[in-house]
């Protein structure tokens, strides 16, 4: 199940086996091949970097969502929270002048990118924490709490922005969205670093063990002395943090924070996690899977656009391929197990 967990006897990762046992990855590779054959320029590094940059926003949130879903929870509020954090970051970056529409990058009278970043992640984490507390203290199911959050955060965003965007950040902030280190886009690097960090946390730390245990059997986890409620709150803090980070990167990339940002992201993000093999019933899954899931969606969208497929047909094809990728994975697994 765990992508990163497929190791051969000597402890190294056996890629051939990994490929053969994880359907979505195989599908991803197949798609890349098909798109390259259709249009060789698909493999142009510019395009590949475009894809990594594009998946980095929802990918970052999907990392946090992996923690949540591993505990058998869900967070539907991420799209709205992203818009909210983005707006907060913009207000901070522009020094509190909420409705400045100037696109000029000069003479910012605001608090700079660092304060904006800090504000976005702190607000995101705090909002997640509040939702986590409502879930654990008031015993309201995560679906309901975060569905409420979805409308509440959107309303708050519209209220602080009065419906409009806040645009025009200084170059130092924009670098996080549009900059390159060598040939690699900064958002992609941020995503990669975050993915590695999350992988390490989930796989090699005591906290990660606890997350799997709580998702695997919450009652057994409690009877084994884990502070289940704290762990549950923490995963919502984490996903909130990532929503804030993604918001910062998105605002930097678009040079604008919009009230309508992130609409529908919850489904994209949850798809990435679920296609990556994480079970909605908790306890099973991995960061590697989520990265593959996010990449699959990104490659599919980009490849179809690349071939200028009509948007109607795109919808149909994307839907079918997502189902097929998971069906194929189940089939592979059923061949291996039982």
């Amino acid at each position, binding site marked *: 199940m765990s992508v990163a967990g497929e190791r051969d006897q000597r402890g190294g990762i056996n890629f051939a086996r990994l490929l053969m046992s994880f359907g979505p990855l195989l599908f991803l590779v197949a798609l890349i091949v098909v798109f390259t054959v259709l249009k060789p320029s698909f493999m142009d590094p510019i395009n590949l970097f475009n894809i990594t940059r594009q998946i980095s926003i929802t990918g970052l949130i999907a990392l946090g969502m992996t923690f949540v879903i591993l505990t058998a929870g869900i967070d539907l509020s991420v799209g709205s929270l992203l818009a909210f954090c983005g707006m907060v970051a913009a207000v901070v970056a522009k020094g509190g002048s909420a409705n400045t529409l*100037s696109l000029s990058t000069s003479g910012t009278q605001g608090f700079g990118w660092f304060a904006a970043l800090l504000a976005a992640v702190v607000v995101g984490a705090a909002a997640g924490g509040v939702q986590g507390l409502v879930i654990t203290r008031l015993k309201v199911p995560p679906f309901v709490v975060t569905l409420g959050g979805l409308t509440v955060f959107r309303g708050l965003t519209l209220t602080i922005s009065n419906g409009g965007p806040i645009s025009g950040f200084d170059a130092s902030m924009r670098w996080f969205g549009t900059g390159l280190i060598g040939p690699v886009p900064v958002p992609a690097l941020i995503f990669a670093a975050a993915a590695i960090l999350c992988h390490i946390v989930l796989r090699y730390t005591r906290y990660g063990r606890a997350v799997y245990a709580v998702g695997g059997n919450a009652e057994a986890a409690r009877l084994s002395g884990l502070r289940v409620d704290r762990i549950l709150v923490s995963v919502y803090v984490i996903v909130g943090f990532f929503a804030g980070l993604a918001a910062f990167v998105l605002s930097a990339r678009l040079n604008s924070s919009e009230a309508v*940002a992130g609409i529908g992201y919850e489904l994209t993000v949850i798809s990435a996690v679920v296609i990556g093999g994480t079970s909605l019933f908790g306890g099973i899954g991995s960061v590697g899977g989520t990265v593959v899931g996010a990449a699959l969606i990104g490659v599919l969208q980009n490849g179809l656009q690349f071939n*200028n497929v009509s948007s109607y047909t795109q919808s149909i094809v994307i839907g079918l391929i997502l189902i097929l990728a998971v069906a194929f994975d189940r089939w592979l697994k059923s061949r291996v197990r039982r």
Partner: protein
Amino acid sequence: QDKLTILGSVPNLGFPFFVHMLNEIKAEAAAQGVNLTESDGQNSATKQTADIEAALVQKVNAIVISPLDVNALAPAIEEAVKAGVPVVTIDRRVDGVEGILAHVGADNVKGGEAEANAMVAAFPNGAKIFHLQGQPGAGPAIDRNKGVHNVLDPLKDKYQIVFEQTANFARAEALSVTEAGLAANGKPDAIVCANDDMALGAMEACAARNFTDVKIYGFDALPEALVAVRDGKLAGTVEQFPGEQSRTAVRIAVAFAKDKTEPKEKLVLLTPIVIGKDNLDKAERIGETK
């Protein structure tokens, strides 16, 4: 007698265009000394219908509405007309319902045509074009798309749309879609977008590739786009005068509600224009830019 109350309903307050529209309705209502009940369709025909129904129960004296979808809102508007409440439509015209007091609008199809014509004028010798469409199935997206094609389809030989995708009226999507388009097709001469948000997203994608001479056209003449036009980053944006439409509509509705004053014209059509660097002063919201 009590103050009159009118309902002001717009399709979706998530978009700045309609926020502006509602603000203008609000301002004019205040100027006319009437109460205003606000309604946000939240991008749902059923929600906007429900709002009209609720307003009818409350016996508002007039309705000023920009329908989310002219067909789907027709029954609700018909209901209002039957109930004897004067209705003035803004921006999008409802056919087939008898007895609407007046329509004040600027046709989206005409706007699309104006946009395409501006682009054609900028490239008399033909051009390679990207076209970013709005949300599939949404009324304005359909109309604007129709307008653009009305102009460009007969000129197919010279003006090729090499890349035509939806970006759902959203900036982030426009950015990604344009990036893919640029990677697949190289630099175009022009990008025609069905709203300003998408134009601004396309602008970022071009800027990232240093394609600063691509002419990008938006739609709606939002302040942010006007700034970009002023700075030479966008080639133009279509102005439909939503504020003027709104104020006119409120004046007509209030006049009728007060003393049955029939409007001078049942149909007030403002011609959409393309705002470029040279006619920025014609833009309704130029005052909001700094």
